């Protein structure tokens, strides 16, 4: 019998609900795995064994009493250390907030609690979610479970590493320029950045309030869909959250049918300069979808010449607004990469910021109308090259940092500006043994469709059945 922590999230929830095993059994399996792996992977900032076991015992007692069971009842999760829980330390991956105890609890955590989830601890992340690799000067680099010399992707590095290593059944991350989709792709997971406004940000550390998204990472499309279904929807505490109805995401992953669906590949930008090995892998993925009855069509991409820079003035200035007092008063407490990046943003004029913000709805409309009349779902690589090692990307504040940042996030950050949903889908492995992934992008609020396509592809391949060696 497979170890309990090797189960999928939905199988784990089913097992607890049916009494096949207890939440304490599940939690102990995850804690044992975490204790064994964390020295190698460094994915936890805080492992809370006592709190997790107390939560698991509560879950088991509630089941024994015949109480109502939520869709995550008794299932251990852990999240990027940037979601506030009243009274608990939330470091945001920083030295500056090493002892920060918020007095509110994030809506997404409340929704996971209400669904019955058990919290195992808090996960490593890039300092203040500012970095796409998984480096962190304060808590150490997070490592990829498929090979610890390689990056996890970031900024939700611990979320990717811990979920792929089977230390938890799923995790929340945040995505301002790719920070859910990048670690999902790097660690062989599904990761969903939903439509901007789909998930409440109340009680979450802010980086860029126009572009921030909270999203789940999980090992299967169905697991990921269940997590999104729990956290999505309007929140009275977040006026930017949408009242648009939440879809039946998990149901869309069951017996998915993509016959007749038009899958678009970009004629420009997203496949420009794509590494040859990745191009072959992505073509193979498209062939799988074609064999399932989808039609593969080439798509003209509007704004291709500026696709990479659309969100820059927005994320830069909004991050600066949050950080500049600390930058002035406590510059020595920042990591070199983070401080360098924020300092550069001092040069962005207010007029540029406002121009970018004001033009956003118009560009979103033009892009959506142009692309999603040619296809139903756009497929694009997440990383445009095989994963690099941690040492290769340890550029700190050198001249190489800007270029590295731009290269890693070139295919993910446009969809933050465009506010469109993007699902990162595991698509196999490179010759170096590290995972690769593609993203599926659709119209606003098309998460159901994206999960359907992702699940159909997953069912036709065996990528998510593979586990990293311990």
């Amino acid at each position, binding site marked *: 019998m497979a170890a309990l922590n090797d189960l999928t999230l939905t199988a784990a929830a089913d097992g607890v609900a049916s009494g096949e095993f207890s939440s304490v059994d599940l939690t102990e399996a995850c804690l044992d795995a975490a204790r064994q792996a964390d020295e190698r992977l460094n994915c936890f900032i805080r492992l809370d064994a006592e709190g997790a076991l107390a939560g698991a015992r509560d879950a088991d007692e509630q089941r024994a009493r015949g109480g109502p069971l939520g869709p995550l009842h008794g299932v251990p999760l852990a999240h990027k250390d940037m979601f506030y829980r009243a009274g608990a330390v939330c470091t945001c991956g920083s030295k500056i907030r090493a002892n920060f105890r918020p007095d509110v609890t994030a809506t997404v955590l409340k929704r996971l609690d209400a669904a019955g989830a058990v919290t195992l601890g808090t996960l490593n992340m890039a300092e203040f979610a500012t970095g796409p690799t998984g480096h962190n000067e304060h808590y150490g680099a997070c490592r990829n479970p498929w090979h610890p010399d390689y990056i996890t992707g970031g900024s939700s590095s611990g979320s990717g590493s811990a979920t792929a290593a089977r230390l938890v059944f799923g995790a929340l991350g945040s995505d301002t320029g790719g920070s859910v989709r990048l670690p999902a792709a790097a660690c062989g997971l599904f990761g969903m950045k939903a439509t901007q406004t789909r998930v409440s940000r109340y009680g979450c550390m802010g980086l860029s309030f126009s572009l921030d998204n909270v999203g789940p990472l999980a090992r299967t499309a169905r697991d990921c869909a269940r997590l999104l279904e729990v956290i999505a929807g309007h929140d009275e505490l977040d006026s930017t959250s949408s009242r648009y109805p939440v879809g039946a995401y998990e149901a869309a992953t069951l017996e998915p049918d993509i016959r007749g669906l038009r899958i678009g590949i970009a004629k420009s930008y997203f496949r420009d300069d794509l590494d040859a090995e990745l191009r072959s892998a992505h073509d193979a993925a498209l062939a799988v979808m074609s064999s399932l009855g989808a039609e593969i069509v080439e798509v003209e991409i509007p704004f291709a010449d500026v696709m990479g820079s659309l969100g820059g003035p927005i994320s830069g200035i909004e991050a600066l607004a949050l950080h500049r007092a600390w*930058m002035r008063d406590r510059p020595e407490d920042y990591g070199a990469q983070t401080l360098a990046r924020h300092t550069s943003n001092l*040069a962005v004029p207010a007029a540029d910021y406002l121009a*970018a913000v004001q033009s956003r709805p118009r560009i979103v409309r033009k892009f959506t109308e142009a692309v999603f009349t040619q296809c139903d779902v756009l497929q694009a690589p997440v990383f445009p090259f095989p994963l690099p090692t941690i040492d290769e990307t340890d550029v700190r504040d050198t001249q190489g940092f800007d270029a590295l940042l731009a290269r890693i996030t070139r295919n993910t950050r446009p969809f933050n500006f465009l506010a469109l949903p993007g699902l990162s889908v595991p698509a196999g492995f490179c010759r170096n043994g590290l995972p690769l992934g593609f993203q599926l992008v659709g119209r*606003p609020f098309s998460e159901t469709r994206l999960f359907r396509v992702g699940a159909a592809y997953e069912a036709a391949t065996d990528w998510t059945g593979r586990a990293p060696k311990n």
Partner: protein
Amino acid sequence: MKHFPTELAADYVEATHGRRPAEAQAERVARVAASMRKTLSVTAEASLFDTEPDQLQATLIALADPEDQ
């Protein structure tokens, strides 16, 4: 402005932030300042009065396909 002098960038950071950056930092600031000129010229291609930030939510809902639910 294609080029933004490093010295000017350093002066700018010092004036607005109260700290003079290291030379490497000032070079980064100068590079970002120059690149922003290009972004602005493209995103401001048309009138800025046709959209407002508050319209993002309404725009997203208008573009959604109910069949996706």
